[in-house]
């Protein structure tokens, strides 16, 4: 039996050429240091690939149930969450392996950058890698669309509005993106084709090229401070490294496999613990209370667009991405020679720190999104009791006006409420009565942050509101006053304005 199997294997091998052509590639020499501790820096690329394979497998399984039709996508997702055995888990795994792949791709890219492995002769490998990063981001975006909930629908609205800002061709681009005049079934189908056929096809072709280049140019040796890359001498130097090298099919591959296994187990456990992501509400655009958010890799962009000055916005939306991608692509051409060790490349290290800090801060802002009014604060967040315990009837009426005019949506009291405007818990110490009337009536002039409420509030409401706001100050603190008109000293207790007595 065994002899027959061996004969069959030989028959196949003779025709496929596995041992003559493929095994030598598997056993190709890699720098000896990959057997040592430095070898652990090299595992991130293969971990990205492994998680991508998990995505393909789970994606195929999802496609067995998911129907990419606008009127059924949401229902099939609910079916997968609650009825299909293990459907919830496959959905969860697809999301977390996808996030894991995104993280691994970024770690891999950062590691390659910091170790200068993009320098001669691996410049093209880096360039292909940048396109792989873009494909991964594209898969993340199109994947969120397929979840077809309000986040997906309004994400398309935002994407379409961005595309619509292109001067001249904007409307045509929008029509192409939406597949018609409105966001609908044609849009979902386009993004399904993108997510399942077009981008994976491009990604796989680029991946093949990327892997070919890695094998052809060889895995880079770990950087040594002082050992500079010189295109004229590098090839010979690397050949020397390989002569001392070890077969890839050995400890190097073992490390790759170890880390990939850890990555798979980590996302598998995370998926089991966290459960599937969404869908949230049904994709009904008329549902009130929509608060759409993009997926985490795009939160930095969400924050950037919220914080951009409107005059620069079209430039930031349309031109900045091109500049960023061009910057990434040009990395090997800025310097493809010289030092590789990060200890000798302070600009490279600084660049990484600045970029990740910026992305981190913007992502944090995107999570907290202080610029968004809290739409239910005016009705859901009561005025803190401590603030109105000793209020006069007029001040209490003012508190009611404060809530009913939706001020709370943008202004917090005692830390609870919107954060678009300042917390007003102590505004009585900062603005005088006249200033308050002015601020509320006229807002911030020039379309700044606060609208003008003059037409929305009658004199009685204004009097009550301002009385309430003036009373918002810490105990014992006098209200703000105009230095040109100091308040008159009083000998008796507080007057009807609620102003505390001031010692002469």
């Amino acid at each position: 039996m065994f002899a027959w199997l061996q004969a069959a294997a030989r028959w196949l091998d003779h025709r496929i050429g596995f041992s003559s052509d493929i095994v030598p590639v598997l056993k190709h020499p890699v720098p000896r240091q990959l057997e040592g501790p430095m070898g652990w820096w090299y595992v991130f690329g293969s971990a990205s690939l492994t998680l991508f394979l998990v995505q393909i497998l789970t994606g195929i399984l999802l496609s067995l149930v998911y129907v990419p039709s606008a009127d059924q996508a949401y229902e099939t997702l609910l079916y997968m969450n609650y009825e299909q055995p293990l459907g919830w888990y496959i959905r969860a795994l697809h999301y977390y392996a996808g996030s894991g792949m995104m993280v691994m791709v970024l770690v891999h890219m950062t590691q390659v950058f910091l170790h200068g492995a993009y320098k001669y002769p691996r410049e093209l490998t880096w360039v292909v890698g940048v396109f792989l990063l873009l494909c991964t981001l594209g898969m993340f975006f199109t994947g969120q669309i397929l979840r077809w909930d309000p986040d997906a629908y309004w994400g398309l609205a935002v994407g379409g509005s961005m595309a619509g800002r292109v001067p001249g061709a904007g409307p045509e681009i929008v029509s192409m993106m939406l597949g018609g005049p409105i966001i609908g079934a044609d849009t979902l189908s386009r993004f399904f084709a993108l997510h399942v056929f077009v981008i994976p096809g491009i990604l796989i072709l680029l991946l093949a090229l990327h892997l070919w280049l890695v094998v052809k140019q060889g895995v880079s040796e770990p950087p040594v401070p002082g050992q500079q890359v010189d295109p004229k001498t590098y090839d010979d130097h690397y050949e020397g490294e390989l002569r001392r090298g070890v077969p890839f099919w050995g400890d190097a591959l073992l490390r790759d496999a170890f880390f990939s296994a850890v990555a798979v187990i980590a996302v598998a456990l995370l998926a089991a613990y966290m459960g599937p992501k969404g869908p949230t509400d049904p994709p009904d655009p008329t549902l009130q209370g929509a608060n759409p958010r993009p997926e985490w890799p795009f939160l930095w962009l969400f924050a950037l667009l919220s914080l951009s000055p409107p005059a620069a916005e079209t430039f930031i939306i349309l031109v900045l991405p091109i500049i960023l991608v061009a910057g990434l692509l040009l990395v090997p051409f800025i310097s493809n020679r010289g030092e590789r060790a990060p200890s000798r490349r302070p600009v490279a290290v600084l660049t990484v720190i600045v970029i990740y800090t910026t992305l981190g801060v913007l992502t944090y802002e995107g999570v907290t999104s202080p610029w968004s009014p809290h739409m239910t604060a005016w009705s859901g967040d009561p005025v803190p009791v401590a603030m109105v315990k000793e209020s006069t009837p007029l001040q209490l009426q003012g508190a009611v006006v404060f809530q009913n005019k939706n001020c709370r949506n943008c202004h917090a009291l005692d830390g609870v409420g919107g954060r678009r405007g300042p917390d007003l818990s102590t505004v009585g110490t900062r603005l005088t009565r006249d200033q308050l009337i002015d601020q509320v009536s006229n807002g911030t002039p020039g379309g700044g942050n606060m609208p003008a409420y003059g037409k929305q509030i009658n004199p009685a409401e204004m009097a009550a509101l301002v009385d309430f706001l003036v009373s918002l100050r810490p105990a014992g603190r006098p209200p703000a006053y105009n230095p040109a008109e100091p308040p008159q000293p009083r000998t008796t207790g507080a007057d009807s304005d609620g102003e505390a007595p001031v010692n002469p």
Partner: protein
Amino acid sequence: MNDNEETRSRPCEHTGVANPARRSFFRWLTYLLGAAATVILAVPLLGYFVSYRRQRPPWIKLGPVADFPLNATRLVTFDNPLKQPWDGMVAHTGVYVRYQGTNDRQQDQFLVLAVNCTHLGCPVEWFEGSGLFMCPCHGGVYYENGQHASGPPPRGLYHYVWRVRDGQLEVQAPHFPTLHDTLEDRA
């Protein structure tokens, strides 16, 4: 196609002439046919990708004028007739309608605003108490007449094309509005 020096200069067995006219003719004919095949394929494939069924946007009845109280903004929902039959609930569209009374010529005046924020398209929410539309995404705020009040939007809310026909308020079916392609642009 072997185009190296050897086959080019090796004389043809039959005629004894290198690179006979028939072979080069055939080569050029193949180039031409290849180009023709590419174009014949590319035109319909690309045409399919960039085109969509264009229809004149029909008028949608939103209700009798009498149903809209004076100076009250309310959200009216309808099914966008520009939809595909399998769009499902995605074709539900909201629009803010405010009846403003009649003008000097006794014509009903309406303010009909799209829900899409002009910044990047998110749906704005109407607040009666403050008379403001607020956008949840990036903090855009508009006054009750649709004018921009605060935040990143570059202009006021988009206006629908509307008319009053037989005592009914009608609006033209809206495409997805963007800065360079507003609803009034395609009226």
